[in-house]
């Protein structure tokens, strides 16, 4: 296990290296004089000079990269041109908002997706199964920004039950916080639920034909016990790992969901940055999400090892 972890960690170094190269490389895509583009409306020679100095645009590209990487490694993700604040601070400030939204969405997805997956596997080839499969297809095909708009129309404009936009943090007022995040969490969880349903159904179908499930049934255990205690526990382990791979889907979904519901998280940060040509912020968000994804998947692998004794040797 120590070996596995060491190998896994070593593998991360080249991956993170290429992540940094790609994120830095984005800058090279800017058409024309990068300083001029990055300055946006500002044509002040002093500002242009400051950008050139900050990004060392007069130096060869590998040198620019080296300086940029040195900054990143010491936690300096650059400066937001528009907000005149360090990118790292902006990202840290938005992180808890998106984290709350993502966690709530995961809860929605787990309850709905895993539930539907178990039902459809147990009641295979019945109306329940077809219904659950249709639901998964719906979840995967529904563009979350349209679902968001439809929910706002129904629950905010038409019925007036929930606020259409805005965000209140949990610490301020937990009721208001839930009211502002329940719709976005549902929208975000919907797509993930569809994916989780398919994974759960597949894993359950496999487990239900295994010998130990047959043994459990032969012992005369209640079907409910067989399914919830024997089958589900074993089926869920791969679902968790596969679910961790969907974390990127969740973060992608957060971009538009936050935009629709005007929630000041990560997604809103990158969209506002794009509108304002605040390129350092765009790079910072990509870098941080990619790193978070890599770290969380590493943790999922470790968790998989811990709960699966067969892999521990």
């Amino acid at each position, binding site marked *: 296990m120590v070996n596995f972890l060491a190998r896994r960690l070593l*593998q991360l170094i*080249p*991956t*993170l*290296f*290429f*992540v940094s*190269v*790609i994120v830095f490389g*984005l*800058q090279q*895509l*800017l*058409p024309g004089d990068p300083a001029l583009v990055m300055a946006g409306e500002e044509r002040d020679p002093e500002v242009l000079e400051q950008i050139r100095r900050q990004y060392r645009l007069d130096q060869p590209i590998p040198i620019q990269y080296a300086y940029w990487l040195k900054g990143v490694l010491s936690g300096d993700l650059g400066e937001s041109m528009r907000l005149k604040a360090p990118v790292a601070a902006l990202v840290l400030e938005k992180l808890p908002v998106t984290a709350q939204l993502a966690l709530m969405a995961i809860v929605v997805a787990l309850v709905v997706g895993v539930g539907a997956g178990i039902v459809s596997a147990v009641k295979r080839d019945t109306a329940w199964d077809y219904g659950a499969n249709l639901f998964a*297809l*719906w979840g*995967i*095909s*529904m*563009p979350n*920004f*349209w679902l968001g*708009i*439809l929910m*706002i*129309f129904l629950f905010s*404009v038409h019925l007036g039950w929930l606020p259409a936009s805005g965000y209140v943090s949990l610490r301020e007022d937990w009721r208001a916080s839930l009211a502002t995040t329940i719709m976005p969490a549902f929208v975000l969880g919907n797509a993930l639920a569809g994916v989780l349903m398919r994974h759960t159904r597949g894993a359950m179908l496999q487990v239900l034909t295994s010998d130990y499930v047959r043994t459990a049934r032969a012992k005369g255990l209640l079907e409910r016990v067989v399914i919830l205690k024997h089958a589900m526990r074993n089926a869920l382990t791969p679902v968790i790992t596969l679910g961790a791979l969907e*974390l*990127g*889907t969740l*973060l*992608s*979904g957060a*971009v*538009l969901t936050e*935009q*629709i519901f005007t929630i000041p998280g990560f997604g809103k940060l*990158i*969209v506002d*940055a*794009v*509108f304002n*040509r605040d*390129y350092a912020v*765009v*790079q910072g*968000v*990509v870098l941080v*999400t*990619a*790193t978070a*994804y*890599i770290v969380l998947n590493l943790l999922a692998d470790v968790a998989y090892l811990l709960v699966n004794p067969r892999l521990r040797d």
Partner: protein
Amino acid sequence: MTSQSAIAGAAVATIDSRETPARRAWRRLRRRKGAMVGLAIVATLIAMAVLAPWIAPYDPIKQSWLLVRKAPSLAHWLGTDEVGRDILSRVIWGARASLSAGLVSVGIALGIGVPLGLVAGYLGGWVDAVLGRVVDAMLAMPFLILAIALAAFLGPSLGNAMIAIGVTATPVFIRLTRGQVMQVKVEDYVEAARAVGNPRWRIAARHILPNILPPLMVQATLAIAGAIIAEASLSFLGLGQQPPAPSWGSMLNSAQRFLGNAPWMAIWPGLAIFVAVLSFNLLGDGLRDALDPKETR
């Protein structure tokens, strides 16, 4: 190959001698209702996109201050938008942006991803190791976030959105192709092709590629669904099709401001995106089952 399986293979060959693999796949696909529904919708959408100039009742970009935000009526079946443009016409024309973005960006992803995957899988060694880590790095970036970043740096236009989505979708095809090549390259027929002295590029193109096409087709179909959502998302954010040209994503963006008094503006473009994505997903799922080699019927 042992003599027994050779005999079994010969027996299967006589039974299915007139059925090519493509015909068999088509026969299996036809049995799946979901896939056929998907295929029918895809065909309809393509026809809609191609025939847009002839079937759209109005000019999709012609504004009229007399017709601002009119509810659906006999003259304008799906209503009009905030500057009096006919929504039905815009939805029909919007199919062009969505479908071409789906096809072009997946074309880009296939065009870059398959050759790189072939090289990585067939050559192995350090080429494979380096490509593998680049793929890991790209897959670590959430799909839409990378596509948004690429589109933002390239500049907003439908063409750049296609490039951004295509590049973002590439690593999946590199990884899939590589994995398939690894499985196929140890087969006897590849060994035989090498034994008779074929050059490596020829083995890759003539002997390996045709045998790994089925999973690539499945993935490509599902990727079109993803690309259509991505294009709609980028257009929604103003990074795709530029106004006044119609696209479903940008129509939804302007609709959001008029939910209270013109909800029809939000219904139809969203439904169009949903149906388009659903149809490619249905077709992809059906293809996966129809092309599954484990399926024997």
